[in-house]
């Protein structure tokens, strides 16, 4: 069978002691750097790229894959432990993961995240090995109108991220969209809301804003509450690992998350970013214990983590089969390949099968290494929480500044984080939640970009959205979602009116 012989080629090139060691070092470095708040996969890969130059092509790609997985997981670790999403996609993990940590279940949240990621990684690797070329071509079916419809659906679904009132969630989304509009207009390069500050020309840095609103906002909020209330942070060391019943409870969530991440991760235009949060929105709708979401639901951590990792892995497909990097991290991977004399694209698979299959196998090895490395480290991470908060918060604040600075080597991003830390605190006091805000900020500008491009392509005819089947279907689902969300509210209001009479 083809697949078996191909995997054998891959195992042959990836499974040497030295390559296993590179995979291990990569995962370790990736985790250690990625666990610093704000240092997501792209920053970590950029930073550690030079460390791989000296290796042979297979070794360097394996080490980079390890760094990439390690950094992704490191970002989730801080999201769970201290409410600091290291990248846009772990914003969702922070919602329930941090609540779990507050209830003394940080260990369980971390180990579940690792298990969910591992499962999703295995499935995604298998899918890449079997279907990569077909899927690569399918991703190209998505043009501007389809992306517009997808973003519209995403924006509507972000209401589901809210714990409390619908009106407040909508308000936060709109506020987020407004903040997302800051910067040069992508169509004409005209500057909007930049007040003559050159650093604002590319808009507010989404990670700096997220870290401010989640991380710093949380710190200010915590410092204000009484120490007694914070004792919930004290963690019981037992319950680090998921029990059988936890595994059974999270299995469907992981499966659904993997499926969503697998589909959305394929799309080069922002798909991987959407996958974690779509998985969360779906889980909240279909889960049996939907009421727990937002208060530390296991499914609320497992599903987005699975989706995140599946999506990240699937984003290798456009790179490997078409030579199209779908995000900064993939562009760096492509750069690393070029430094090794490999031109990523359709020819790699035919001309250098040992390299292609070696990379596929090394993805799996990277995932395995990550679980082996991180499950024992869960205890160590959780112990961090037992540091008295008066020391811990200082360390967090310092690491936040370092992390945010290193995103673009820009002190301005640090100011943005600080300002949004206070904004986050005030909004929290008023009952506004950061997650819908961040989604609005991510999706708003993309919605605008794809709308404008669709209209340019159709010469101003809005029917383009309905003439194309994929975009029509997505918009139909979006319309249905609005009705579903609106109905219970309408019903409740009716009840209220009736009660008053």
């Amino acid at each position, binding site marked *: 069978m083809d697949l078996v012989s191909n995997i054998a080629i891959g195992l042959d090139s990836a499974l040497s002691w030295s390559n296993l060691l590179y995979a291990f070092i990569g995962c*370790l*470095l990736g985790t*250690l*750097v990625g*666990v610093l708040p704000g240092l997501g996969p*792209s920053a970590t890969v*950029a930073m550690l*790229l*030079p*460390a791989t*130059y*000296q290796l042979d092509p297979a070794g360097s790609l394996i080490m980079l894959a390890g760094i990439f997985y390690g950094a992704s997981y490191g970002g989730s670790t801080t999201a769970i432990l201290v409410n600091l999403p290291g990248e846009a996609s772990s914003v969702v993990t922070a919602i329930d993961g941090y609540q779990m940590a507050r209830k003394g279940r940080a260990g369980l949240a971390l180990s579940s995240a690792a298990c969910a990621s591992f499962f999703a990684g295995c499935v995604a690797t298998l899918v890449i090995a079997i279907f990569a070329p077909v899927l690569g071509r399918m991703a*190209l*079916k*998505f*043009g*501007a109108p389809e992306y517009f419809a997808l973003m519209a659906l995403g924006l509507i679904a972000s209401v589901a991220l809210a714990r409390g009132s619908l009106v407040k969630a909508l308000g936060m989304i709109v506020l987020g969209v407004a903040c997302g509009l800051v910067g*040069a207009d*992508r*169509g*004409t*390069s005209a500057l909007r809301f930049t007040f003559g500050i*050159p*650093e604002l*020309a*590319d808009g507010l840095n989404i990670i700096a804003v997220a870290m401010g609103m989640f991380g710093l906002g949380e710190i200010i909020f915590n410092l204000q509450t009484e120490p007694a209330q914070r004792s919930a942070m004290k963690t019981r060391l037992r319950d680090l690992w998921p029990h059988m019943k936890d595994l059974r409870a999270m299995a469907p969530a992981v499966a659904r998350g993997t499926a969503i991440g697998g589909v959305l991760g394929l799309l*080069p*235009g922002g798909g991987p970013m959407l996958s974690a949060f779509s998985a969360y929105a779906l889980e909240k709708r279909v889960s049996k214990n939907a009421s727990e979401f937002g208060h530390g639901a296991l499914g609320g951590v497992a599903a987005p983590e699975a989706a995140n990792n599946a999506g990240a892995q699937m984003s290798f497909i*456009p790179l490997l089969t*078409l*030579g*199209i*990097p*779908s995000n*900064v991290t993939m*562009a*760096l991977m*492509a*750069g690393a390949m*070029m*430094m090794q*004399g490999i*031109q*990523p*694209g*359709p*020819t790699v698979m035919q001309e250098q099968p040992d390299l292609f299959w070696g990379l596929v196998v090394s993805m799996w090895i990277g995932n395995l290494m990550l679980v082996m490395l991180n499950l024992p480290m869960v205890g*160590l991470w959780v112990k*961090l929480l037992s*540091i008295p908060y008066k020391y811990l918060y200082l*360390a967090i604040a310092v690491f936040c500044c370092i992390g945010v600075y290193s995103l*673009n*080597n*820009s002190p301005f991003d640090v100011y943005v984080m600080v300002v949004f830390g206070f904004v986050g605190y005030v909004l929290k006091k008023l009952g506004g939640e950061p997650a819908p805000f961040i989604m609005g900020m991510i999706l708003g500008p993309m919605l605008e*970009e794809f709308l*404008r*491009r669709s209209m*340019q*392509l159709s*010469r101003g005819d809005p029917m383009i959205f309905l003439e194309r089947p994929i975009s029509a279907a997505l918009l139909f689902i979006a319309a249905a979602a609005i009705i579903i969300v609106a109905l219970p509210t309408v019903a409740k209001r009716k009840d209220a009116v009736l009660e008053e009479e």
Partner: protein
Amino acid sequence: MKRTVGLFLGLGAALLSLAPAAQGSEFPTRPVTLIVGYAPGGGTDLVARNVAEVLSRKWGQKVLVENRPGATGSIGIRALKNAAPDGYTLAVWTDSDVGNSAVQDNLGYDLVEDFDHISQLSAGSTILVSNPSVPIKTFGDYVDYAKKNPGELNFAVVTGGGMHLDSLRINAAAGVETAIIGYPGSGPALTDVIAGHADALLLPLGPALPHVKGGALQALAIGGTKRWPGLSDVQTLSETVPGLESTFFHGLVGPKGLPDDLKASINAAVQDALADPKLGAQFEAQGFIPSGNSPEEFKAVIAEKLETSRTAAVKTGLKKQ
């Protein structure tokens, strides 16, 4: 926490120790920073990383690439302007930096007067490509097709990028009109042309090569004055419209006030690095040739490019008067 930090520092030290030992030359005695005004993974970043790698070996000191992306490279240029002229902070520039200066006012710097230019690093050609489903094979076909069907072709451009101005300039020189579809980066633009959502794109040769060879893109014309060795059957722009060309460069620049002997010594090291066969192969794979010159020559190149771009920006209407 302490244990983790210790471990991290230890590994960092281990990595640094991989660097070759210092060879005792006068400059540099500590790591040198190369500012790149664009995100990691792009063409300019790759050039900087290639050059940094060779210079690190030659100097026996780490040469670090520092990405300062934002506002079409102008954040990085401003950072360079404010750096001390001691040779330890340098920057790699490209065409977009010139194009941006030609279009934007009030950037707060003058590319010619406010800097000390060290040497050009590369000379590259652009390539005009189309989706294979469009019934055109050459730049001549493109001109005919666009004249017969004015405004029908969708020409993808990266808004405000280095190729934006060149795309408009080519259309103007050929006397044709197409729809201009804006993209935030070359990745999405390339994807859409391969997928057939847009029809034509002008981009640096390197990233287009594998797609042209694989048949995903039709090569219409090479932007340089000479045909590219690997694609010898593809005509140049000037074979259809005499005098029309579209090229780009990368170059090494320092803050104003570099001492002359230091500038000469860095220039010498760069010429040496550009002769490195491995670097040559890396450059060629990305579609450009190593191409050094003297500080004076490089300064003249920048001044000339800026003047041409300014004229073109006004002529094509990209810069509103």
